[in-house]
């Protein structure tokens, strides 16, 4: 009996082994470049350079300024919306949810162009507002990045916090009310503090995403350069790269995010409370006027996030002439892409489905380890899982490429490398949202199962996993959507036969085929939408997305 390792030790060991192969190995060799001089010695020149030259260190400052602002604005927007959506009988809630989830998924590159089409100097909305006499500041620069990030990333907060708010024990709120707290005070002193682990998780996701995302700032940053853009440039450039500097920058960005991650972990650790939520809170029926007003406000925000995709879909039907749109509508763009879709769609789905299954399994296990079996090693595991998240996808692609293109492991050019990259890169969504919800689950429920003779492993799958479902699902949806839309690592890793839809989009955009790109992106949007609907149908009545 004694020599059989217990389930969770085995899991932990297995996770570490996988991490070692697919994370530590590629990244370590990549990071090593930051301190290895061209002559082969160890040097910290690159770091010295970074802190000496304003060109470099200013990007760090810019990045932090953006991340912090965006995290705050996303929380400010996402939490109230999550509250309203879970507690009130809003009109059009499911439509709103779909729009919000969809807004996370700006089809690569072209989605961001939509913002320029809408809010650029010559943008449709800008012109419209100018005609009304409203002078919009330009979308470019700090303000624009913050705006676009906020609209794009608040869904993390919304989704994660909704999940948690739905599984709080209602008697806590009632207790607060019985002690004379009005709604606002109740929310501030009981509801939010109790779901704080989840709030922090979602804030972390926003922070990390805005720290890592280079697409948006690249597009509308103009002169305002942030760290990931710089990393991207140092790794991928037509005019020569500086791998040493690039690794240095990667190390710095990883350090930043690790710091924030550890901070979050430390705070959450102190706020780790269990409750047995037998009675989830009821949905309150609002009176007609507030109901309409609140619904309208929420849907407006959701719509704003969804707007870029509407622009994309509209564009896909516009008539094109070479690279430019002309007036009138046609289906030409779709005709153009029709012949190249089947393989790419097939790839997108096979890779994504495989990846998502692995993500859900690993995500739950890792989250469980780091929350319920808290130890130094499981915290380390949690931290490691998070860090691919802040590495630009293309850089991760490069790390994988150079690590798995030579013995002992040769994976380059195969579907496996794409799938592994997706898993490594999209795992954090599921891990974060799941660990958020895990903090709320009373451990005595698990103990009850164990006392009835189910092994910890079986207990995990029959009880804990089921109770984690709301968190797992919202994380898995995010993972899924961002996997089918994943571009930046794919572009480095695909080979002739393993191209995905988003690769095709990129190729069109990069070459000015905006009409066809829009058509491809619309298809992706449609696919995303369909998978959401499908999910809702399959899980009818059992679990909701949010």
């Amino acid at each position, binding site marked *: 009996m004694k020599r059989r390792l217990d389930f969770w030790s085995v899991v932990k060991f297995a996770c570490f082994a996988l991490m070692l192969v697919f994370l530590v190995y590629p990244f370590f060799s990549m990071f090593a470049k930051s301190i290895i001089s061209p002559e082969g010695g160890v040097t910290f020149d690159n770091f010295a350079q970074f802190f000496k030259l304003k060109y470099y260190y200013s990007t760090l400052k810019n990045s932090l300024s953006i991340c912090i602002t965006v995290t705050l604005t996303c929380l400010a927007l996402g939490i109230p919306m999550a509250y309203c959506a879970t507690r009130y009988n809003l009109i059009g809630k499911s439509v709103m949810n779909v729009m919000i989830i969809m807004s996370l998924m700006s089809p690569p590159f072209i989605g961001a162009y939509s913002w320029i089409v809408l809010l650029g100097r010559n943008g449709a909305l800008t012109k419209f507002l100018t005609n009304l006499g409203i002078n919009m500041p330009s979308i470019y620069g700090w303000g624009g990045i913050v705006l676009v990030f906020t609209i794009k990333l608040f869904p993390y907060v919304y989704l994660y916090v909704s999940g948690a708010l739905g599984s709080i024990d209602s008697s806590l709120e009632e*207790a*607060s009310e019985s002690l004379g707290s009005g709604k606002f005070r109740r929310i501030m002193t009981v509801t939010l503090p109790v779901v704080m682990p989840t709030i922090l998780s979602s804030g972390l996701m926003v922070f990390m995403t805005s720290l890592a995302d280079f697409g948006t700032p690249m597009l509308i940053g103009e002169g305002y350069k942030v760290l990931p853009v710089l990393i991207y440039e140092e790794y991928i450039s037509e005019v020569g790269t500086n791998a040493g500097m690039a690794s240095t920058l990667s190390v710095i960005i990883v350090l930043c995010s690790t710091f924030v991650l550890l901070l979050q972990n430390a705070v959450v650790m102190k706020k780790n409370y269990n409750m047995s939520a*037998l009675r989830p809170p009821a949905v309150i029926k609002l009176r007609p006027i507030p109901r309409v007003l609140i619904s309208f406000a929420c849907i407006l925000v959701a719509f704003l996030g969804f707007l870029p995709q509407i622009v994309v879909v509209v564009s896909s039907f516009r008539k094109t002439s070479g690279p430019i749109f002309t007036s009138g509508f046609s289906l030409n763009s779709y005709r153009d892409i029709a012949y190249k879709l089947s393989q790419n769609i097939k790839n997108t789905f096979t890779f994504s489905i495989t990846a998502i299954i692995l993500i859900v399994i690993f995500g739950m296990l890792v989250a469980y380890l780091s929350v319920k079996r808290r130890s130094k090693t499981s915290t380390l595991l949690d931290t490691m899982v998070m860090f691919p998240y802040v590495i630009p996808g293309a850089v991760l692609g490069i790390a994988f490429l150079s690590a798995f293109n030579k013995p002992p492991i040769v994976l380059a050019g195969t579907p496996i490398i794409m799938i592994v990259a997706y898993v490594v890169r999209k795992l954090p969504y599921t891990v974060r949202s799941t660990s958020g919800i895990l903090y709320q689950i009373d451990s005595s429920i698990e103990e009850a199962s164990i006392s009835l003779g189910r092994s910890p492993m079986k207990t995990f799958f029959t009880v804990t996993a089921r109770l984690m479902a709301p968190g797992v699902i919202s994380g898995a949806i995010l993972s899924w959507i961002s996997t089918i839309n994943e571009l930046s690592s794919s572009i480095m890793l695909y080979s002739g036969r393993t191209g995905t839809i988003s690769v095709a989009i990129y190729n069109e955009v990069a070459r000015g085929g905006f009409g066809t790109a829009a058509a491809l992106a619309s298809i992706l949007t449609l696919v995303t939408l369909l998978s959401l609907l499908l999910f809702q149908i399959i899980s009818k009545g059992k679990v909701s997305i949010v």
Partner: protein
Amino acid sequence: MSVNVRINRAVKTYGNFRAVDEVSVDIAQGEFFTLLGPSGCGKTTLLRMIAGFNSVDGGEIYFGDRLINNVPAHTRDIGMVFQNYAIFPHMTIFDNVAYGLRNRKIPKDEIRERVEKTLDIVQISHLKDRMPAAMSGGQQQRVALARAIVIKPQILLMDEPLSNLDAKLRVQMRTMIKKLQKELGITTIYVTHDQEEALAVSDRIAIMKDGKIIQLGTPEEIYNRPVHQFVANFIGTSVFLPAEVVSQDENGEASIQVSGYTFRVKLGRKAPKKLKLSVRPKQFLFNDATDEGIKGVIRVATFLGDYWYYEVELTSGETVEVHEYTKEHEGARPVGTAVKLLLDLNRITIFNEDGTEAIR
């Protein structure tokens, strides 16, 4: 200031099921009112309606003259102890208890003082900086209690506030609650499953069954004059013995026969032929002297501190529970002993045949 609570034909339905079924009751200002009834009879549901956490699906609830059916809970000025404690897991014990006061614009010093005093009362002041997760069940329950009473509300609602405390502490706490309640004149509605507790603290008790109030009265009324077999059975154990009126004279004096034992008792009115006697375990008396009494054999004998608990199998085949105080009879009566049981005629309750109406 305290207030009276008037409940008029209140109804709560879950689907087709009526958890609270046209309950009407007036609770006086400053009254200590207890809801007592078997598990699942609707006590919590009713309490939550008064607190404002369950919708009122029919009827009205008034606090004083104010219809509160739709008044938000937090403006009702209630204190509530939840059956599952509902302690805020993210606050220390001190903050949990101070929570309600912080809402009331009370100076910090006073808050500290009141919280500490209350924690003292519930005997957990040494734990005030702990988090709830590091507390035992009973300690948590006392936090819930302290949190509700520290705010000195108009109405105090308590749902089994002492269920996880040991007997000593229970008595101390209930005495404390009662004292506080009288001092401040707080109208109190109390849910308990413990009859003794209900009898000890209540001004009036409502016995509930299946969402309805079966009997409403002072502890003595409920105990001594149950109007329904259910109440007799529920408050203290009772055994029901079928009996027959052999004769009754014009004064109401009746001769009643039960299991071969005949006794005379005065009834207030003309009794039906068939009766049902409700006898509590302590209303049986062992007759060691004569041969009179209901005959039976001791089957089980258990020591229960103050008294011995016996199960006696009557010749009729029925088994009845009999308690005998240890000071009335030294040592156990061994299992197997043949005994004769008399009835404590002044105390037993006499029902009609189906137990729905008390004859005496």
